[in-house]
């Protein structure tokens, strides 16, 4: 491992933070996906139609995305490179989304944006330390 010469700093904690957040949101997404697939009556949708796709398709999309996010979160703990790439991209998308949301709820948006910034910093500059830390 080329990164084995890297010193482990306190920032590695933020890598684990990102891992836990991804795990949590992935599990929640899997649950909403399964709800749509197994008991679509749970969602009060008229005629089974939601935005763009029907509820079953959305159920599968949530399920697959949720599984990807959970895998990414789990892999972050081992310091896997692909997990850091995916996690940084997710954080970038999240940050830009909340930028557009500033007018609706400034304090909330700015809080999330700062957290995203910290996570991106930790993952890019100190992400390799998780592999050493284990």
């Amino acid at each position, binding site marked *: 491992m080329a990164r084995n010469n890297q010193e482990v700093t306190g920032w590695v904690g933020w890598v684990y933070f990102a891992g836990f957040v991804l795990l949590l949101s992935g599990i929640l997404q899997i649950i909403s996906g399964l709800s749509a697939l197994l008991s679509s009556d749970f969602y009060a949708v008229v005629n089974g139609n939601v935005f763009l796709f029907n509820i079953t398709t959305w159920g599968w999309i949530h399920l697959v995305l949720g599984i990807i996010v959970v895998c990414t979160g789990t892999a972050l703990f081992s310091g896997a490179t692909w997990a850091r790439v995916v996690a940084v991209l997710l954080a*970038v998308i999240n940050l830009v989304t909340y*930028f557009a949301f*500033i007018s609706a709820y400034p304090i909330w948006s700015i809080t999330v944006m700062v957290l995203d910034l910290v996570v991106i910093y930790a993952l890019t500059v100190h992400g390799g330390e998780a592999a050493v830390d284990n």
Partner: protein
Amino acid sequence: MAKNRPTAWVGWIYFASAMLLVAGGIQVIAGLTGIFNADFYTVSQTGNIVAFNYTTWGWIHLIIGIIGVAAGFALAVGRLWAQVLALVVTIIAAITNLAFIGVYPLWSIAALVVNGLVIYAITLHGDEVRE
């Protein structure tokens, strides 16, 4: 040192790359808002330092944003020209964001903070990746 051997400091260039993606994405949103939903900007057009109309501003933001996103991806490859391009785009972006600050302070400030992080990461840590 072997060219493609990653060590600790290479992380900074990925940080700069991610920040440039964010800055570009932010500016694309500001641009699309100006083009398609200019009423969103409630300040009268004269409240702007440089009094183009919002459609013109929208296109300026959109184009700079798209170049910024492209430069962000190029940065991750670690080429010198990508760093130069990224710096130039970010400086231009910062100036346009500053000129736009009277229109929507929170958006401009958020964008400027991210622009500053890009410049910091590239100027102070960019040369390390070129060793």
